[in-house]
């Protein structure tokens, strides 16, 4: 699916945030936030704790009352279309003892037929395909509560991919995930972004990850302090302004695990792992061993 651009929006923007303010109980959480998320790229949202990063995501999801305007440019003329937004929470806080299989969870999100009457073949198939896209076909029959942190985040990403969202919002998706899982997840995000079909906005506290992976950075502390390419935003001065401590940050190369050395920071190419991006659905549907 090719995302079309709205005429009211600047070319190349997926989301335009204009003068957005959020107040709750008399406290200003976001003040006059104006920023743009580029189309088909990986954009990072950075800032200290309490900067309003999650609130900004919630505002984009339409879950927080706010003033100002948020335009989704990639989904209809003049930013007026209804955007499909995928959201991966920081940590899915759920009852881990609930007997819900991964495939259940994916179908739960998209199918109308109640799950006790079975999964619809069509949704089971696209669920498996989405799992394949995140390299997690083998998790289909596993209990959701038994997944590791990294596995769970990949399943959440698959859930998001199910309905081909225009925009994917990731809220610190790799906090609480081990190093290998983090690397795997970030590679997947890069692959998904590289397809150019999805614009990704990722909240991250890991500046080295941002420098290495992001193509655009928004620095937020109640309001936008800086935005632009990582090289421009991640300067010692702006990081000092943002976090209040002096971070000597030299660039992307200090990140511990590298897939292909020499790939420029924020390259749209996904150099790691096999490309799952355009794979057809995996096993034929109908092979549903379990109810």
């Amino acid at each position, binding site marked *: 699916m090719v995302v079309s651009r709205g005429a009211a929006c600047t070319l190349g923007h997926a989301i335009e945030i204009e003068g957005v303010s959020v107040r709750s109980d008399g406290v200003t959480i976001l003040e006059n936030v104006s920023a743009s998320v580029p189309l088909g790229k990986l954009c990072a949202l950075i800032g200290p704790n309490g900067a309003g990063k999650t609130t900004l995501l*919630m505002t984009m*999801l339409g*879950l927080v009352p706010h003033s100002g305007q948020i335009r989704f440019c990639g989904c209809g003329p003049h930013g007026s279309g209804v955007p499909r*937004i*995928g*959201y991966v*929470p920081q940590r*899915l*806080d*759920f*009852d881990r*003892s*609930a*007997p*819900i*299989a991964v495939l*259940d*969870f994916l*179908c*739960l*999100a998209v*199918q*109308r*037929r*109640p*799950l*006790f*009457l*079975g*999964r619809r073949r069509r949704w089971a198939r696209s669920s498996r395909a989405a799992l394949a896209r995140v390299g997690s076909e083998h998790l289909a029959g596993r*209990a*959701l509560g038994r997944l590791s942190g990294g596995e769970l985040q990949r399943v959440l990403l698959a859930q998001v991919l199910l309905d081909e969202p225009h925009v994917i919002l990731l809220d610190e998706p790799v906090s609480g995930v081990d190093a290998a899982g983090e690397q795997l997840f970030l590679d997947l995000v890069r692959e998904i972004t590289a397809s150019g079909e999805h614009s990704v906005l990722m909240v991250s506290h890991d500046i080295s990850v941002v420098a290495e992976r992001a193509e655009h950075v928004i620095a937020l502390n109640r309001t936008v302090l800086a935005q632009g390419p990582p090289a421009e935003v991640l300067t010692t001065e702006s990081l000092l302004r943002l976090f209040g401590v002096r971070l000597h940050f030299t660039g992307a190369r200090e990140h511990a695990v590298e897939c292909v050395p020499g790939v420029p920071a924020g390259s749209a190419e996904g150099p790691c792992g096999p490309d799952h991006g355009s794979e057809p659905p995996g096993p034929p549907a109908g092979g549903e061993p*379990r*109810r």
Partner: protein
Amino acid sequence: MSGFEDLAGQLVGPLTGLLGRLPLPGMEFEHNRTALLAALLVAPMCAALGVEVVTFRMAFFSDAVAHSAYTGVALGVLAFGSGAALGVTLAMVAVGVAVGLAVAALREHTRQTPDTLIAIVLYGSVALGLVIVALSSDKGLSATMAPYLFGAGLGMTAADLLVLGALAALVGLFQLVGYNRLMLMGLNPVLARTRGISTRAWGQAFAAALALVVTGSIRTVGVLVVGALLIVPAAAARNLARSAGGMFWWAVLLATASAVAGAELSILLKNPPVGASVILCATALYGLSELYRALRRG
């Protein structure tokens, strides 16, 4: 009113007649068949909704609604007199739904944790009921309350069964439309909202459905133990099921088995209330499910 009773008799008659053919002891008596049919309607209905109650951790909430029925009955008797069964039932349902919606609404507007909030509403409504009963000049009030506390069981009428049948159909419909949404909400409300589910509306619809089912079941099982019908089979189902759909069917199956076993237990022992017997059986099945889980884990 008698027209309704006649209609109910005509509709329910063939069903109870069918139960009479079951090779179960005591089925030759009409009141036993009625009790079994009531249990068979109430238990699976409660269990189906119980799957969500357990997922939402709302066991305490359903108990609060159940206990508010005590106040509802007292108010109903006060308003319509102890003879007006329909009026009393309506008052009970109204108070139950009001309590359910009050908790759901308060949850969004106060800083208290849900369990604290529920306790406040629960004890407030029960205290009101106690005061009403004490103040009432109607000396028959305490006697009127008894079947609501412990369940009427064998005293159920065809009209009661018809109402239960309608309620069960309603719950079935609610589950068809709401099951996926409610399960997703139970997993993570924010995720559900990003999927376009109006969590507030569904939360309130669920609270109302729960209140209806609980109050609707009270004449069969009684205020004191009705909450167990929601929780116990669903909890056992969690131990046995391996998928979201499986959990639903396990809960319904275990509840149905408990209904039959409980009704028979009550018939064979000639005395105990049907509701309590059914729940005793369900609790035994729950124990077995824990054992199964322990063995499966090794």
